[in-house]
Structures are given as C-alpha cells and as structure tokens.
C-alpha cells in the first residue's frame, strides 16, 4: 500500500505527515499528531464524536481519508480557544452544564461552533437540526441546546 505526503494546517499550524491510503483523518489526528480531543466513538459516521472542521465545514473525521486532506485547513476542539480565552461556545458549555461525561463534547462543540459561524442566531429547531449527528448518552441534550443559545447571546 502506498504512502502519501500530506500537508495540512491544523489549528493554524502547518503540519506535514506521511499516511497510508487507508488512514482516516480521525486516525491521523489522534495517532500521528496526538490531537486526542477528537474522539472515536464508532468509526462509522454515526456518533459524531470525531467531528472536526475541514476547510470550515464540519465532517465526521472517521469518514474522511487523511490523504484527501492535503492542502486543507483543519480545526479540532483543541483549536477552538484563543491563547487565553475560551470560545463563547466552550464558556457556555461549562456555565450551562452541557457537559457530563464529556466524550461527545468535542464533536458537539465543533458542530455548534460551525452552526454559530453560519447562523449567529439559530432557532431551537435549527440548533437541533445542526446537532442531530452528535449523539450524547448522558445529558438528554437539554443543556446542550441551552449552551448553544447562550453562546449565541455571548458572541
């Protein structure tokens, strides 16, 4: 199996990695680059825990080949906060209790962040529709919705 050189910008930093054809973006992030904030919950595009931004759009990183990401920009949960300042969606998730076990949280944050970028004042229905691909087994989602509403107010 051939290996491919991939140049990517991750959270603003240039990285060059060599990956086999069958490596997913999720595994490249977690195993080569140690961005373990991106979680592996199913490897099948079903749970959303591995959601990252690829050129500004959320994707299930388990459903994207690393080799396809040559020349792209990726943002993971580690890249949401500024130097000292958390992003409003992170702040809101802490304050509103949107986090319990936290395993779905990175994916939820990325999906919510992307939603607020494309729609700064989402309705509750729009929030639900944007997050349907992110499963959570702990919270019952109620406080996640509240967190996104609160983040919209803050940003």
């Amino acid at each position, binding site marked *: 199996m051939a290996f491919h050189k991939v140049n990517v910008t991750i959270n603003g930093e240039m990285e060059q990695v060599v990956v086999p054809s069958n490596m997913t973006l999720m595994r490249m992030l*977690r195993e080569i680059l*140690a*961005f*373990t*904030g*991106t*979680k*592996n*919950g*199913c*490897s*099948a595009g*079903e*749970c959303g*825990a591995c959601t990252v931004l690829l050129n500004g759009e959320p994707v299930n990183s388990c459903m994207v080949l690393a080799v396809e990401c040559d020349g792209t920009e990726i943002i*993971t*949960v*580690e890249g*949401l*906060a500024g130097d000292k300042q*958390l992003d409003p969606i*992170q702040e809101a*998730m*802490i*304050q509103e*209790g949107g*986090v*319990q*076990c*936290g*395993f*779905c*949280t*990175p994916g939820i*944050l990325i999906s919510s962040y992307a939603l607020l970028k494309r729609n700064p004042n989402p309705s509750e229905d729009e*929030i*639900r*529709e944007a*997050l*349907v691909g*992110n*499963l*959570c*087994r*702990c*919270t*019952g*989602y*109620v*406080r*996640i*919705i509240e967190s996104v509403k609160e983040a919209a107010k803050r940003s």
Partner: protein
Amino acid sequence: MSLTRSTLWVGQSLPRVDAPGKVTGETQYSGDLSMPGMLQMKILFAGRPHARVVKIDTTQAEAAPGVVAIFTAKDVPVNEYGLQWNDQPVLCGRGQGEKGSRVAPDVVRFIGDQVAIVVAETEKAAAHARDLIHVEYEELPAVFDPLAAMQPGAPLVHPELGDTNICVHDRLRKGDVEAGFAKAEVIVESEYFTPVQEHAYLQPEAGLAYIDEEGRVTIKAGGQWTHTDRAQIAHALGVSDEEVRVIYPAIGGAFGGREDMSVQIVLALAAWRLDQLGVRRPVKIVWSRKESIIGHCKRHPMRLRAKWGASKDGKLVAAETEIIADGGAYMYTSNKVLGNTTITSTGPYFIPNLKTDVYGVYTNNIPSAAFRGFGAPQALFMAEMQMDKLAEKLGLDTVEMRRRNALRDGDTLGVGTPVPGPVSILHCIEAAAQHAGWEKEPDGWRNVKRENVQPANLKRGRGFACGFKNVGFSFGYKENSWARVELHGDEEIEGVVAAHAGAEVGQGTHTVMVQMVAEAVGVPLEKVTLMTSDSAGMGNPGSASASRMTLMAGNALKGAAEAALAKWEAEERPAIAEYTYRAPETTPFDKESGYSTPNFAYAYVAQAVELEVDTETGFIKILRVVSADDVGQAINPALVEGQIEGGVVQAQGYALMENFITRDGYVLTDQLSTYLIPTILDIPDAVDSVIVEVPSPIGPWGARGLGELPFLPLAAAIAAAVHDATGVWFDELPLTPERVLRGLGKI
C-alpha cells in the same frame, strides 16, 4: 420542604470542576493515553454462543510480523472471575488455571467470551495476527430463551454448578394472597415483556496497562469501582491486591455497564506476562463499537406476570407476581439486580398480601447485569401498569389511585420490615401531579383534560407513574466508603486536600465532592484539591452505582473533614484524618419468605408524561415530561437537573426506540446505525425537573441519591399516556411505531 439555607456551597449550582478540561480536549480518556514503547493488543472473541475449546494453535499467528506475544488460557494463573461469582473464564481454554476453579474454563458460553490476546507493535499487526489463530471448537447445544432454559432437559450453561439453569430465585411471602384476593373488588392479570437495553455510552472500552515504578501491575481503564476491579484482576493473576493498581482516567459514561470487567484483566495479564518475559512495555487496547456491544453486559430482559387485586375504595389487597429474567451466560450482578427487582415489584405501595417469585436464568446470551435502575425499571413497568389498569377498572384517577396506596412512614415493605423513613413518595406524587396539570379536588386528584385541537390522526394522552429504589448497597453487604482530608496552613487553613477514589463517570460526583468538602471545612471552593480514582494510597470508595455516591462519599468526606478539623483545633499541622463511613446494617432475604431489612435508604420519584400518538404511522412524540425526584438535598441543583434530563431521555429510548435484536445468541444490532439511541431531534419538547427535598436523616446535609431515579417510572408513564390517547394497553416494550400500529389493529 428544604433545609434552611445556612450553607455556603451545598445547594449551589456551580459549574463542574471537570468541565474546562473536557471542553478544550485536554481531558484524557483511556483510549487517548499513550506511553513510550507502548504495544497494542487485540482480543480474539469466540464468536459462537456455546462451544468447547478443543485446541488453540497460535503458531502461525506468532510468526506474523510485529507480534510480540500471544497469551491464552495456559497463561492465566487462576482462570476465573466475576463480581459476584467466579463463573467466567478470563480466557476460554485448558491450561494451568483449573486450580480452584468452579467452572470449566474451556467452555465458551456466549459470543463475547474471550479466547486469546495478541500483543503486537501496532494495532493492525495485532488484528492481523489474531485472524491467524486457529481454534478448534466442539459446538455444544445452546439455549437462548430463558423460559426454555428453565425446563428440565434444557442444555445446561454451567453443568458443573448444578442440574438447572436457574441461578437466582427470590421469594416474597407476606400475609395470605388467597384471602387478599377474596376481598378484592377488581383483579387485574397481565403479562409484560421488557427488552434488552445496551448502555451505548459514547466511549467504547479501552485501557492501558504497565508496570509502575513500584513494580505493580497498573491498569488505566474506566470502571465504576477501583477496588473491585483490582480484586478481580489480582484474583485472576493469583497475586495480592497490593500488587495491582487501578487508576481511572476520564470515563466516557458508564450507567452500570462498566461495573463488570471488560478489558482490565486481559490487559493486566498481558503487561504482567510480558514483564516476566523480560519485556517491560506498556500495553494498550481500544475496543471498536462492535466489540463494545458484544463485549459488555446488558439490561436484563424480563417476562413479568402479575395478578393484583384492589378493594372498592382503591386499596391494594393482594399481589401475586412471577418474573423471569434472562441472566445471560454468567452471573455478573444478576443476583443483586434481581433482588432489587423483587423489592421494587410492589411499586412504592403498601400491599398487605404478597406472593412473589423472581427467577434469574442462565442462557447463552450476552450476560445481563447492572444498568441504571438495576432491575427496578422492569419491575416498576409491571407494577405501575397494574396500578393504572386497576384504577381504570375502579373508575379512579391514576394519581388518586397512587395516593391511596403510597407507602407511608411505618408501613412494611414486601420484605416484612418497615421502610426506613422518611418516606417521601407522596411528596413526589403531589409535586408531579400539580406541575403536570392534575387538580386536587375534595374527592381526590383529577386529570384535567385539555381540548384536543390536533388533526384526527394525532391522539394526545397523559400518563403518570412512580418509582422508588434503594440508595446504597443491599442485602447484608457491609456498605462503606473511605475518605481522607488534609488541612494545610499555619494560622489559617490555606489548602485542603481531599482524597476519595470514587469514579466520575459523567454524573458530576467530583464536583459534588468538592462542594461537600468546602462546606464541611468551611473554606472557599478554590482551596480544595480533590485526589481521586486511584486504588493505590486510597481506601475503598465503593461503587459509582446504586445512586450511592453522594450519600456515601459525602458522609465519608464529611466525617474525614470533621476529624481533620478536630486535629486542626488541636494544633496539628497539617491536620490529616481518614474516615470510613459505615452505613446502617442490612440483611439478606430469608430464602422462603424474603423477610429482611435489605436496605438502609430509599429515594422516590413520580413522573407525568404528555404525548401524542400518530395513529397513521405509530410514532409517539413526547411533548412533556415532568419528573419530581426526591434527592433529600440537592448539593448542586444544576447537576440534579442534568441527571434528570439525561435519565429521562435514556428511559425514553428504552421505552420507545431501543430495540436490541439477537438471533441464536448473535447480535443483529451491533452498531449505532442498527441499535438506535435518541438523537437531539427525538427528545421531549420539554423536560420539567421538580426537585423535591425531604432530607434523609443519614444523608450528608440530608442528601439521598439520584442517578437512577429519573429512569425508573418513565416507561410506565409513557405506556399509560399511550393508553390514555388510544385506549389500548401496550404490555411490551419498546413501543416502536410498528408495535403501536399493530396494537391499534392497523396492520
């Protein structure tokens, strides 16, 4: 009712202490861990429901590139384990491990039994080599239906344990049921079926094992009880507890599913055996979702038969119940789960005459064990449905029916002894009913119907149900929890270091612990440092289960804090105190009658549901859930609400959607695309949490327990609302659209 607010930190909705790490991606779960020189492991699962391992040939696999070692039964010193009974082999096969073992170690009893482990340089190499292990099996006749498994002549899952597959039989005998039924105005007889439920925590099992600086086999893998994980690992390795160390990284949900072993023993075995071979390298494993689904226990499916009678004035007079639960291939915690099913099968009601038989049966299915509610949700589905049907026959409102029968202080439970008070089910009933729109009239509670302005195919209904459950461990277990508190400083207390090994599985217990320590010592929150989740250097915390952690850890930390403060007063610097809280004693069931004092504390809940049934598609939409939970004292109300919302949605999945399908012991729903859990679009339009606070005399600041409560009555409340909407009783869960339409006679 509430405590007078003289508290500093107890009762405040503070943000979680672990949230910052979780929102930045810094928090490490077991699958995120790595160490220099780390090897990777894969497990060979048997993949068949019942077979004898005749021969294992690892020659080809050992020669595969990247393989470091392969271990099988012959490498396991004591090849048996189990939380309650040691009835499961660590690795199926013949070896040295028969020593003292009660069960045949070479028999595979469900598809997820483990046969071999492969340690290699990479995960891929390990998986490749695993596929090159040749195992010769002798297939054995298998049994999958618990009713068939109870029959004489059925294939035996554990022939060495006796000539029956019945592994649990609990009985309650109280009063005289025949005499009771003779006084009944109405009698309801029904048969109910409740399904398997998969925990589906978002984080699949994973772990890392290594030999620590003191030579201990150290396992970092999420669990619910550090010290029993350690004990089970040590038993299988044939070493002392002190030679094993269990550390919990962040844990991605548990709900009971991590109480039993998954990857821990084999990980420890690998690191320990490698070390003996001169390879001191850490070993890591991460399960796929499919491995998780076949590899860990499930909620017990049950068949529940009930005959209940009530007098003209709506008082329960007698109940006769038979419950059969599929325990799966091994005991796990079935005996305790079913004990709890037995106790809760009366509902939170006083019933003078009782005859109850609860059976647990071995089959070749995936083992059943702990899952939020621990046997109570199934029993309460039955009990609450019986209440509704009796109320309907009597023409009584469902809330009024419950009010008339609710347990009161001093009432005896089915086990023949008084329920420890104060009993607060009436508070919960009234709170939930009022909030949900019932009205109290001179002759009792009444469900005030609203206009149904929906299209003809959308039928609205309201349902109500109650639940209760023990807090803390039962049946004579010496329930205890250890803590240490250190007070540092000179003139003033400058820092507090508290230690408690209790598991944070997402419920927020570490946050609550910090609040309780700050409260007990009387310092600002920032001064408290909490050390957690390590079996080394900490005493037994007890399990993060049975809704017990707030009560048990709270009492332990409070006791340690008080003792440390006394030393501080005596000028000790630092002032350090350890304290083990011991709960009031309990006793096991009498074998014949069930007579016992099984629990030292209970918590109560009542819920109301409003929903809409689409009679053209069978879909049920939940409009509103009101959940009134008596937590004694909410240490952190925001976390309480989070638990209620999460519990309600998990129970909604159980009631409506989660359909775990197996065929001959094989799982057909082994992914999240086939086993569906609720998404954000499936949840109720509103979940209203009503926090009831009737203080427990033994709880820290009056706290009872919470985690399981919101799960308990929801399925019954939903089924009652569906009946209210359609006039049809549904006695089998889940209420999938297809089942609903069939029940409505539409297909």
